[in-house]
């Protein structure tokens, strides 16, 4: 902190250009992007076939639902809430599409109904969290079971297959002809990413999102309609999860009750790996997108290196645990260093010890 006197009456201004650059270069977004680059480079040299276009294609298709859902989930977590029901909503969305198409409805209409179901389900989460005032963790554990239960009850243990080819092409085809790397469907992600990055990083709504995460009550007093924003974010998360469900049906050509079981874990892991604080108020979309790609690259590289899929799950878990404890570790090391310099013994956990000055 600088030692210059600060006039309290002056309005807060943007930080000096130097600070801004430092933030950009040494922030968590930059760290996670650098980590992604390192993993990618190592994989390119060490893992055979990692540089083939098909690898990138399957990598992107494999993590596509996570990419989509991570966008609204990032904003939900920044407000200090969480949504664990997304995986079940992907399942419910795909089952709704499957059941309606089987019942003779055209695919487009069925998809629209599924999107509406997603928005309503998400709004139910949002209503219980904001209007009833319940913790989102408990609510969405409940709806995780509820949505999955509905999905499983609608189709039982049947599965629906045989969707129209022109729709399937939408999810399965490649943008520049066969053998190239980019899936065509990536445009959907690009559009949504532009919308969400703009919303979070360049609009008052985005600033309000951070303000709520920092201090919900203070945000309310400064005139932010916290409830409405959270409700909207939960509804958006539900709708986009259902969208991912529709994609799921088309890409894998099957609608089943247990589609995308456990996907919520991957999404939450990606968002946290991407540098968003679980306590809210911190993080950004560039880091999260890099985090999703990091997990995708890691999985893809391990798979190509013939590591079993279970070990890949272990790697995802380790990555999640390590990224969340690193900030605490850095903080602790900083305390130890300061204590060594000052010659004071560190007693972590003692009352009054400054270990909570920054909750990460």
């Amino acid at each position, binding site marked *: 902190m600088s030692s210059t006197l600060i006039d309290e009456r002056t309005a807060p201004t943007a930080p000096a250009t130097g600070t801004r650059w430092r933030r950009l270069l040494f922030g968590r977004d930059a760290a996670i992007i650098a980590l992604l680059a390192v993993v990618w480079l190592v994989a390119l040299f060490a893992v055979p076939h990692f540089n083939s276009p098909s690898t990138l294609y399957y990598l992107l298709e494999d993590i596509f639902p996570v990419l989509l859902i991570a966008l609204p989930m990032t904003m939900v977590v920044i407000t200090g809430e*969480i949504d664990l029901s997304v995986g079940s909503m992907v399942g419910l969305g795909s089952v709704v599409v499957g059941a309606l198409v089987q019942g003779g409805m055209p695919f487009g209409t069925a998809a629209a109904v599924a999107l509406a179901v997603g928005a309503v389900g998400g709004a139910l989460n949002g209503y*219980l969290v904001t209007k*009833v*005032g*319940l*913790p989102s*963790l*408990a*609510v969405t*554990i*409940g*709806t*995780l*079971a*509820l*949505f*999955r*239960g*509905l999905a*499983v*009850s609608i189709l*039982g*243990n049947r599965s629906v297959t045989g969707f129209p080819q022109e729709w399937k092409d939408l999810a399965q085809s490649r943008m520049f002809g066969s053998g190239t790397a980019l899936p065509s469907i990536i445009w959907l992600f690009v559009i949504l990413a532009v919308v969400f990055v703009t919303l979070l990083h360049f609009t008052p709504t985005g600033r309000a999102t951070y303000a709520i995460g920092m201090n919900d009550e203070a945000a309310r007093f400064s005139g932010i309609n916290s409830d409405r924003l959270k409700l909207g974010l939960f509804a958006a998360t539900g709708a986009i999860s259902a969208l991912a469900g529709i994609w799921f049906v088309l890409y894998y050509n099957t609608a089943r*009750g247990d589609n995308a079981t456990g996907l919520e*874990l991957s999404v*939450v*892991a990606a968002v*946290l790996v991407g540098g968003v604080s*679980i*306590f809210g108020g911190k993080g950004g979309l560039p880091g999260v997108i890099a985090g999703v790609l990091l997990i995708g690259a890691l999985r893809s590289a391990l798979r190509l290196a013939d590591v*079993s899929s*279970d*070990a*890949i*799950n*272990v790697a*995802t*878990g*380790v990555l*999640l*645990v390590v990224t*969340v*404890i690193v900030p*605490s*570790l850095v903080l602790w090391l900083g305390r130890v260093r300061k204590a060594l310099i000052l010659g004071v013994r560190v007693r*972590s*956990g003692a*009352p009054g010890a400054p*270990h*909570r000055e920054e*909750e*990460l």
Partner: protein
Amino acid sequence: MSAVTAPERTFRRRVADLIKRRETSVVVAIVLVVALATSVNSSFAFGRDGWRNLLLTPSLLVVLAVAQAVVIISKNIDLSVSAVLGLTAYATGEMFTAWPSLPIPVVVVVAIAFGSGLGAVNGLLVSRARVPSLVITLGTLYIFRGLGIAWVGSAHIKPSDVPDSFERIGIASVLGVPVLTMVAIVVVIVAAFVLGSTRPGRELYAIGSNEEAADLYGLRVQRRVFFSFVASGTLAGLAGVMYAARYVMVDSQAGSGLELQSVAGAVVGGVAITGGSGTVIGAALGAVLLTTISRALPIVGVPDFWQQALVGALIIAAIVLDRVLANRHARRLVQEREPNVEPAEVAR
């Protein structure tokens, strides 16, 4: 501030309190479900098998719900219990195959200690790194389950792998009560005593109500939280041994999904997810209610598939009810203190 005199504990007041308790309503719900299912098919509760299953089936989830209650009361959560159960269940069978001469009690103790060790990993990460337990145990759920699959692969424990005497524990009854049910009851009694009447237990409630205040008061928050996770790992390990004895067939997916059911059981039984309130007995009764409902559904003609949706609806109903009751209680307390304030101003 004047001292508030405690209301007189008259008999009527005690009865009224008892009726208002969450545990009472859960018991009523269990009785209703059992009565309904029995009226459709009398073998649900009567007959040798019906009676045994009625008592035996919930015992596993009861132990897990108690484990979950211990951590939820201190405002944490342990999502890795199901993976710990899977690992210890497989370890139990594996020890019998690897060292057939090992006496059963040794195997049981080692398997439970294995669970404690896994719980200690959670506890260390949560209490030291000061990261929410939701995130840590989500990670360790992945890690433990992944390690389990890597270790077990497509192999599984078969009934021929375990000694007959161990297999019999899973089905044996003493005086009409299955042994595993007795184990669960002992766990509930011990945990209820520790949480209700000992210092470490009461401190967990204090930590769950307000961690910062507990810290300022001088409670050793980190240590208590650490040991609450060791306890939940230990109980999950015990549940793993029970799983091995009850089902004998153990594969790499043993117990998957039970983490949510254990949370559901505790929450339905009145353990608030926001920490600091609820009882172990409530959590155990919640678990009994959930298992009994899912066993009763097919009998009253509802397909199995609806069970999960019902569990979800029950969780939501339970937390909404908790919130409504807490609000009403808070409003009444404020009104007792300041009778002139309009109730509307008290809300929120």
